[in-house]
Structures are given as structure tokens and as C-alpha cells.
């Protein structure tokens, strides 16, 4: 079954993947007034709003970090995740003109869409440096391992889900309207505006079922000095791989009809 995904063919088309990402990035930053700044504005504004409502007014705890930084550090992996899923799930429909005219492994489409989100993430991550300098916050050395590791896993989780969703959306168009809504709820179910330490103990097992909860905690914990929890990370990695493998199999099964119905 897995052989049907044809990894070698995917590898042969790696240059097209590069060009698809390159195109999306170029087109996105051309003809926009603020260009790359958009990548930073989105999490920055969310941070300001959260800092005001949850930090100032609700006075949520923030694990020893300044609250705005705490929120921003949680928003970084989350924005990567939600942007990746949003563009990934719509990617097949958005590329219908290519899909009906040229052959290439269709899996490249969601892979490219999700990869493009990494670029925005990189700019937003850079923004963390002036923000932490501004509030005299010194990130822990743990970040050197925790950030790349959790970013990779967020990417893989988003990829697995996007592969599933991009194929499902071709089949069931109205899913497109459901996805943003689910992402919104998912965000509040993930410890972003609040720390995981604030979650009552009896709910913890449920919260930990959400792979994004442990990934956001790993990402942010790396900055604040928490050690990487190996079992948490391994579980998230396992889930990501299951999503990618099962998604690819489902995607390939639907692939034969994409050009006819898209």
C-alpha cells in the first residue's frame, strides 16, 4: 500500500516542489505594500491583543516570561500550524488549472503549500529577537534543540493534516468553510494564551491528546528553560507520521479522480 505513494517519483519531481514554493513566495511578496512585514504583523498583532486582554485584564500567568513574549512564543508555532493547514487544505482547489493540464505527483501541491508557510514563520521567528531584547528576556540554551525540533514536528503534523484535508476538500467542498472554524477552536484548546501549568490536573490527559499542546509547550518551554520531554515529543512525532502516511494513502486513492472533479 505504501509503495503506491511512489517516493522515488516524488523525489524526481523535487525541483518542481522548489519552484512551486518559490512561486508562492515571490507572488506573495510582490505587489504588497509591506512585503515581508506581513509575515510578522499577523502574530505581532495577535500578541498585542492577547497581551492586553489575557495579560493585562485577565492577568493570566505566563510561566515566568513577560506575558507579551509568552503569547508571541506560543503564537509562533501556532501561526505556522494554522497558516500551513489553511493554505494546505485549499491547495488542490487553488491549483486546479495545473492539475487539469499537466501531470506531476499531486502530493507536491499540499507539500508545497505547507512548505511556503515556513518562510513566513522564519521571518516571524526573527522578530522574536528584538522583542526579547526589548523586554530584557534571555532565552534559555534549551531553545537550540527545542525550537528546531518542535518546529519540524509542527511542520510534519500540519503536513499530515493538510494531505488529508486537501484531498477531502476536493471531495467535499463545504469542508472549506468548516476548517477555519475548527482551527479557531483548536487554538483555544491549545495552551497559547494560557500556560499548560494552569490546566486543572484532571483535564491534563485530555489536553495532552492534542499534539499541538505538547509542541507549543516544547517550543515555548525551550525559550523559558524547560527541558524537552522526550515522551511528549515522541508521541507528537508518532502522530505526525501516522497522519502523513495515512493521508498519503488516502490522497493517492483519490488522486485518480482529481482531474475529473476538480
Amino acid at each position, binding site marked *: 500500500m505504501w509503495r503506491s505513494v511512489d517516493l522515488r517519483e516524488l523525489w524526481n519531481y523535487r*525541483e*518542481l516542489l*522548489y*519552484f512551486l514554493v*518559490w*512561486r508562492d513566495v*515571490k*507572488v506573495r511578496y*510582490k*505587489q504588497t505594500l509591506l512585503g515581508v512585514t506581513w509575515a510578522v504583523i499577523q502574530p505581532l498583532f495577535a500578541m498585542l491583543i492577547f497581551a492586553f486582554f489575557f495579560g493585562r485584564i485577565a492577568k493570566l500567568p505566563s510561566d515566568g516570561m513577560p506575558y507579551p513574549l509568552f503569547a508571541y512564543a506560543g503564537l509562533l508555532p501556532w501561526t505556522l500550524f494554522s497558516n500551513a493547514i489553511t493554505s494546505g487544505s485549499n491547495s488542490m482547489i487553488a491549483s486546479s*488549472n*495545473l*492539475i*487539469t*493540464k*499537466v*501531470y*506531476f505527483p499531486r502530493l507536491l501541491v499540499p507539500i508545497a503549500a505547507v512548505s511556503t508557510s515556513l518562510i513566513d514563520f522564519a521571518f516571524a521567528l526573527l522578530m522574536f529577537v528584538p522583542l526579547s531584547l526589548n523586554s530584557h528576556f534571555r532565552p534559555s540554551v534549551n531553545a537550540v534543540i527545542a525550537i528546531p525540533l518542535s518546529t519540524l514536528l509542527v511542520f510534519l503534523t500540519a503536513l499530515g493534516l493538510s494531505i488529508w484535508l486537501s484531498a477531502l476538500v*476536493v*471531495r*467535499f*467542498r*463545504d*469542508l472549506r468553510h*468548516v476548517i477555519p472554524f475548527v482551527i479557531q477552536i483548536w487554538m483555544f484548546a491549545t495552551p497559547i494564551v494560557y500556560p499548560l501549568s494552569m490546566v486543572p490536573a484532571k483535564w491534563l490527559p485530555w489536553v495532552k491528546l492534542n499534539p499541538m499542546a505538547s509542541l507549543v509547550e516544547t517550543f515555548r518551554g525551550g525559550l523559558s528553560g524547560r527541558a524537552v520531554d522526550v515522551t511528549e515529543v515522541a508521541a507528537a512525532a508518532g502522530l505526525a507520521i501516522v497522519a502523513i502516511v495515512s493521508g498519503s494513502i488516502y490522497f493517492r486513492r483519490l488522486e*485518480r*479522480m482529481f*482531474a*475529473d*472533479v*476538480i
Partner: protein
Amino acid sequence: MTDIAVHVESVSKLYRIGAKIDSRSLRETVTDLVRLRRRASEDGERDLWALNDVSFQVRHGEAVGIIGQNGAGKSTLLKILSRITEPTKGRVVVSGRVSSLLEVGTGFHGELSGRENIQLNGAILGMTRAEIRQRFDAIVAFAEVDRFIDTPVKYYSSGMYMRLAFAVAAHLEPEILIVDEVLAVGDAAFQAKCLRKMGEVAAHGRTVLFVSHNMPAVRALCERAVVLSGGRVVDEGTSAAVVTRYLQRVTSPAGRDDLARQIAGLKPDPSFRLLSVRLLQMGNDVATISNGEPLQIRIDFEVLSPTMGLHVYFQLLDLEDTVIIESIHNGDTGEMLVLSAGLHEATATIPANFLAPRPYQLRVLAGVANVRSCVGEGVRLTFDVEQTGIVNSSYPGYETPARLAPHLDWIVTVPS
């Protein structure tokens, strides 16, 4: 290895018309699950076999033309050959690297510059980065856009855009090239350039599958041709023989039905009734006209009551609705002759070596001079003319931009 490049084996393709069986909304699926049924053969849905048991082979280095009327299944076949969609039954075995051109400029993005689009489009069509780099200058030179290479293509004229798009496609070097009617776009000079390039590709021993309505092009470029009709292969052989047989076939039933429907739909007139319009060459009904032979336009009608000024006439138009010729049945007789009551057969002859090899529309009308039209807007039919006459025969492959191509006498003398 065999010498077969493309092996099409009993390929059939089913489309469901009227029901979106595979992109249903979530709600429909959920309700179906609840009721434990599948939505099939209801809601006016019907099956359409776009291809039905199609088999043929193409050898390495061979150029094969695929011809057929609209709806014959050519596009579906191309999509299957280029792996865009899969056959419902049967299989296709292709040995060699395939590039398919179902349109030029696939994936072009208006915001990107010419340079960027060359890279992107090249990658989409299957070129490696190294190949794109290596052919970049040749592509730019072919497209004649070097001054604008860093301008976003949305500022290009449509001509420049097409040239650039074709230039990338023309520099593909696959083992097997599958081409749809990309040549149908652009002006005549551009089409001629594309045709020349296609000829080069075929001459370099590469395998070419070429789908076209352009019969002279098929005959010039391809050794063999396959005719599709109603999703089946109905004729196959050397392209010269196949094209000739194809052109001799009578007007398609669909075309005839359409004309008959137009005639039946005319408002009744007290003095005139149109019965039929036919295109005849050498006594046979034809769908495609050879411009080396005279063309008879035969109009059968009935006069219900003799009326002063009643006349039958036709117009020949191009596809943009420009009237090129207009001729009235009694227009040149010096006086209006009154038609007697009863059936009449009127025949107008367009001489050989007069029409250009291009599609035309024929519009047949009738009226009472200065009073009314007897057939409203008239009836129309479209036909294609293929080059068989002597006009421009010294320059095969040249496509004249002219709407008519009459043979004229030239006398060239050397002054003494």
C-alpha cells in the same frame, strides 16, 4: 525494449453527466449515509462513455495525428495519455519521457516577470533547472521578448505572452511529445512559426502525438493518423489517406441536425419556406471543403405565393462575423424576376481556387426587397476549408492571413 512508444489498450473512460458523484457536499453524503443508499442513476444523471474501447499503438520516432469532431473524445484521450486522468477501463503503456502540451503557458503567473515565468513554466513542463538555464537564451530569442524579460507578464501584449509561452514549450526535448490544439491560438504568422517548430520536433525523430483540426498540418507533420468519432477509433492509416477520407465524409449528423433544427425553428412566412441548405462538392455533401474544387451552395425552398421582390441570398462570414461575400439569387440579372409558386432548387457556385484555407460561416437568408425578411436572422452553418488548390501551393505550410485567396493571373516580364 520494444519499439512501441505508446501502447493504448482497450481504453474506455466513463463520465457521469448531470450528477457530481464525486464532489458531493458533506450534507448530501451524510444524509446518504443515514439512509444507507448511494445516489446513483437518479437526479437526471447519465453515463457518458467519452472513450469506448480505444486501442492503437505509436512506434518510437513516429508522428501520429489524432483527428475528430468536437466531442469525439480527443481531449479525453490526451488527458489519459498525459496521465492527467486515468481510464475507467483498459490501460496505457508509455515508454519514454513524456511532455504534454494541452495548452501553452500553464502555470504562468501575471505578477511574475518573463524570466521567472520561463523558469516556473519550464519546471512545470518537466525541465530540470539545468536544462532551463541551458536553454534560457534560446527561449528568450525565440519569443523575441528580450527587452521585457524582467517585466511582469501581466504587462505583456497578448502576442508577447503567447510567444513566450510557446517558446518555453518549443524548447522541451522529451522523447514523446503530446500536443493539443495549441496552434489554434495566435495570429497566422505565429501559427506558421509554431507549425515549423513542430515539424522540426517531428523531423528530429521524436515521437509526436498531435491533436488538431488543422488538416493540412496533420498531413504535413504526421505519417499516420487516427480518427475518433463518438469515443471510438473509426479510421486509422497513413495521414494522407485518413485525412482525405475524413474530409470526404458527409456532414456530421450533429451538424445536419443543428441545421435542420434551425430551419424547423423559423417563423412561418406567407410567401416563402426554406427547406434545406447543402454544401456540395463534385455532387457529394461535404463537411469540409477543398478549395481546389468548386463549391456548390444548394438552397431548396418553396414559394407559397408569387411575390414581387422575393429573393434568396447568402453571406459568407468569417468567425468574427465579418461579411466577406454576399450574393443574391437574382441580384445580377438586371431586373427582379418573380419566382413562381412551388418548389425551387437554387444553386450558387463558388469557383475553385477562391476560398482561403480557414473556417467560414455560411448564412442563408431570404426576403422581400424593402419589405421584410422571410427567415428572420436566417440559418447558419460553419464549415472548414482545406488547402488543396493552387493558390500559395509554392509555399506549403504558409498560412495566409487573407479572408479569401482567389487565384489571380500574374505576368512577370523582363523589360527590354
